[in-house]
């Protein structure tokens, strides 16, 4: 749990922290598409420079980003290796039946590796600099057109924001119940699989019971404060699109443009 960096927020006051979550979300999605425009070493060099620059802007140390890649490293290396071993074309260095290491293979392996790492780095920038609640607001706002298709976007956004709000409480509660059962002699992570499963019952049952209670309390609290699902609500948390947000999206467009130009050369 502690190792997962993607999806975590690092408080700060950088330029990126102050961007509207919507512009960051759009940029994040756009980046995934942009990355597939790159098909040359020069293009990737440009993307690396760009990404490293953005990472630097976030004010979060480079090491944190590397830690974010670590849980996925085997998957990335596997994909890279597949390219290197099976792709043919150009000069062939090794040829062992189906396994060939070729010039194209090495280059493509490198591209695949870069794409993975760049996408992870860039999305990590988005989540590290945006509060989960702001991300929720941003997603809710961007998906608003789906309301026309009868998708309950506002309800879903509220649900998501309340879940986020209660995650720390749930973690505390889990910790507390685990401590209590350990104090009563439970030893986690010992014995056969069945024994280990058994030790989970005294955790999950109380957790489930208390979550039900909590849910009932919350539902009552929401209802007495006038919450009715399906009615129109205003929002107190305001998103404000600033000139700098437009500017950042413009930079993404420029980036895409440059890559397109490099591509045709």
């Amino acid at each position: 749990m502690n190792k997962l960096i993607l999806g975590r927020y690092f408080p700060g006051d950088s330029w990126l922290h102050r961007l509207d979550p919507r512009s960051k979300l759009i940029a994040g999605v756009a980046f995934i598409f942009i990355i597939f425009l790159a098909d040359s070493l020069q293009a990737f060099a440009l993307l690396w420079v760009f990404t490293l620059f953005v990472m630097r802007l976030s004010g979060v140390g480079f090491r944190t980003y590397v830690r974010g890649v670590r849980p996925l490293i085997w998957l990335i290396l596997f994909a890279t290796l597949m390219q290197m071993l099976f792709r043919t074309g150009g000069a062939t260095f090794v040829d062992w039946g189906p396994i060939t290491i070729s010039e194209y293979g090495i280059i493509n392996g490198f591209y695949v590796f870069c794409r993975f790492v760049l996408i992870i780095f860039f999305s990590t920038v988005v989540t590290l600099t945006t509060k989960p609640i702001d991300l929720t607001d941003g997603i809710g706002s961007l998906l608003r057109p789906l309301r026309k298709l009868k998708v309950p976007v506002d309800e879903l956004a509220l649900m998501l924001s309340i879940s986020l709000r209660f995650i720390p409480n749930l973690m505390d509660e889990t910790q507390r119940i685990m401590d209590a059962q350990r104090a009563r002699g439970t030893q986690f992570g010992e014995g056969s699989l069945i024994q280990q499963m058994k030790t989970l019952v005294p955790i999950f049952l109380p957790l489930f019971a208390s979550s039900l209670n909590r849910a009932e309390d919350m539902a009552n609290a929401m209802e007495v404060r006038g919450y009715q699902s399906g009615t129109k609500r205003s929002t107190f948390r305001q998103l404000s699109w600033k000139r700098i947000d437009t500017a950042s999206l413009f930079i993404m467009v420029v980036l895409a443009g440059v890559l397109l130009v490099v591509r045709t050369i």
Partner: protein
Amino acid sequence: MAMQVKFHNVAADYKLGPIRQSFVLQSVNLAISSGTFSAVIGPTGSGKSSLLKVLNGLLVPKQGQAHIGDQVIEKENDKHVYKEVRKRVGMVFQFPESQLFAETVLQDICFGPINFGVPFEEAKKLASDVIEQVGLEQDILTKSPFSLSGGQKRRVAIAGILAMNPDILVLDEPGAGLDPKGKAEIMSLILNWHRKKEMTTLLVTHDMEDVAHYADEVIVMENGSVVMHEEVRDFFSDDQRLEKWSLELPNARRFQLKVEQDTGVKLPNICLTKNELVEALIKVGLA
């Protein structure tokens, strides 16, 4: 069995998710003699709960040692140390009813003892003994813990700890959330058990009435350190110092100070309870 608790330069920190709280405990030195009832007080986040957790091996010191009887908890420990310590130290967490899980009250109470190697038949006897100690009827043993009222659940949870026959009992606000009557009942059953079993008891509380009524000694924590450890009457004698820590006085003592100020008559002793105050007022002829 006599059990001494000694902390020698204990420091510890927490890691929960990305947040590492640096040194929730720092160089704690503490000696609690066997058979005493100590109250642990201090503002939220001063390290009270962490102190309790170290006692039970739930939080491992980064530096220093905690001696519990003849067991030592330090940075690196054998697993059997934890087992031995947890067997001796009974821990009642805040809102302990949230740990109930078994099908019946009997099974829930037996959970601790059985984990520590007590045979089922013996554990059953312990349970039926302890359920009366907490003021509940025998027939509750066959019920589901989830069907009980809030106050009953609290008692069952405490019974589950007492059934482990600990030598040291550690309680974190055992009366929290109960009405005054329910709280007084819980506190008096704990006091009785403490006396009967000659236990060493530690009570974390915010309520100065609890401190005045039940504790022999007071441990004050601030920013992860023990800043004071005193006999309870000495502790309440210095009201200016209490004010500095923004601690309340217990009613009797507060009233005593007012009476002394208004009448100019000094009462012969420091009164911690209503009974003591009544006696003192009569003795000096004010009432």
